[in-house]
């Protein structure tokens, strides 16, 4: 009885050994294959021919930036409405929105954004002295060191040469990693397409020489869009001569949306 048990045990051990050998063989093969991947990538640069002529707009001649003048915003919500129409953003989702900050003399700061501020704002805090209050339009910061594209497992999120951060709607699998990775809450999963969605700086307009819809529609000039590579663009003078700030600069994401007159309460 004991002998037989011993025999089976030995058999188990040997078969385990042979399995291990098999496994090691396969692992080595895989290792070699993967290390050769880089070489294969170089040997077969499929469709790498210059197709630039298909893109008449030269994106290397532009570097777009966005500037929000907090001191001018009146919280009318025209930008959010225009964004929805221009980009067919589904109801309840926002590529841009407006936040209201009310900082009372005593007590906690109140922040609200009813319906993204799309239909304007109601009365706000009542019966208290509010020495400081303002609106802050928010949108994707189109970070130069963007955390959202880094986490995309399928390469659906990318930065264009002129600075816009976009999502490939065909390639996105809707996993939502980028939604979590964005520290500004600028991304959402579109309930109609089930892909990640975000502000594109109206790339279809900008690349045709137009302003983004929110900038076009803003009645008080609180939203400014400009080109860093065009020395005559007024945005360069504002950035060079005025005091501007970034949202959460400590995260080192290098946002390309600047805020003029930003309060420290805003995150």
């Amino acid at each position, binding site marked *: 009885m004991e002998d037989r048990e011993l025999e089976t045990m030995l058999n188990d051990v040997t078969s385990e050994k042979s399995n291990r050998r098999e496994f090691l063989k396969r692992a080595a093969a895989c290792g*070699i294959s993967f290390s050769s991947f880089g070489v294969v990538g170089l040997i077969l640069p499929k469709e790498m021919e210059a197709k630039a002529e298909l893109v008449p707009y030269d994106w290397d001649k532009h570097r777009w930036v966005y500037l929000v003048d907090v001191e001018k915003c009146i919280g009318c919500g025209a930008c959010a409405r225009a964004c929805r129409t*221009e980009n067919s953003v589904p109801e309840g989702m926002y590529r841009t929105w407006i936040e209201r900050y009310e900082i009372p003399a005593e007590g906690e700061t109140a922040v609200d954004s009813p319906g993204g501020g799309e*239909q304007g704002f109601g009365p706000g805090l009542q019966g208290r002295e509010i020495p400081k209050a303002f609106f802050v339009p928010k949108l994707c910061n189109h970070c130069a060191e963007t955390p959202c594209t880094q986490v995309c497992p399928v390469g659906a999120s990318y930065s264009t*040469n002129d600075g816009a951060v976009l999502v490939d*709607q065909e390639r996105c699998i809707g996993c939502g990693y980028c939604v979590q990775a964005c520290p500004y809450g600028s991304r959402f999963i579109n309930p109609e397409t089930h892909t990640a969605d975000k502000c594109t700086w109206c790339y*279809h307009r900008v690349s045709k020489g137009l302003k983004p819809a929110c900038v076009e529609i803003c009645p008080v*000039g609180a939203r400014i869009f400009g080109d860093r590579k065009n020395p005559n663009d007024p945005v360069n003078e504002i950035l060079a001569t005025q005091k501007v700030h970034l949202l959460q600069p400590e995260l080192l994401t290098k946002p390309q949306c600047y805020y003029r007159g930003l309060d420290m309460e805003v995150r």
Partner: protein
Amino acid sequence: MDPNSPLKHAKHVFRAGFLFVVGVLTLVVLRYVLQPDTWGEFGPYRGESVREYRALPVQYGGVDGCAECHDDHVEMHRAGLHQPVSCELCHGPVTQHIADGEHIAEMPIRRSSATCLRCHERLTARPESFPQIVRAEHIEEMEGEPGPASCFECHDPHSPI
């Protein structure tokens, strides 16, 4: 095979070599099947996606297009305090009105005080310098009639005041 032959262990090398070739071929095939055509055109993403974004239709056209037919309104509008306010802010995007140069639908005319008050209702968070009113107080002060379109009794939205 002669046990003293120098090639007696060569089969191990051949097996490894065979596995290597199979591995490379598998990757080549997978790359061909799974990788989108325009991948890597501009960077590690599908280049076609950029063109897809660029091809999206534009909705908001700007004031210049409006002036082609409505020059009288645009002229008055440009001379007034509402000059920085885009026509399309109150009336909606031009593409809902004109398509391929043809008139397709009337623009909405929002004769409602709610449209005005989205900008001009007094709110603590609005900049002090921006013209704002408390509606009830303003109507009382101006001895107007409270109603859904009371603003228009005195103000022309194209050129207010």
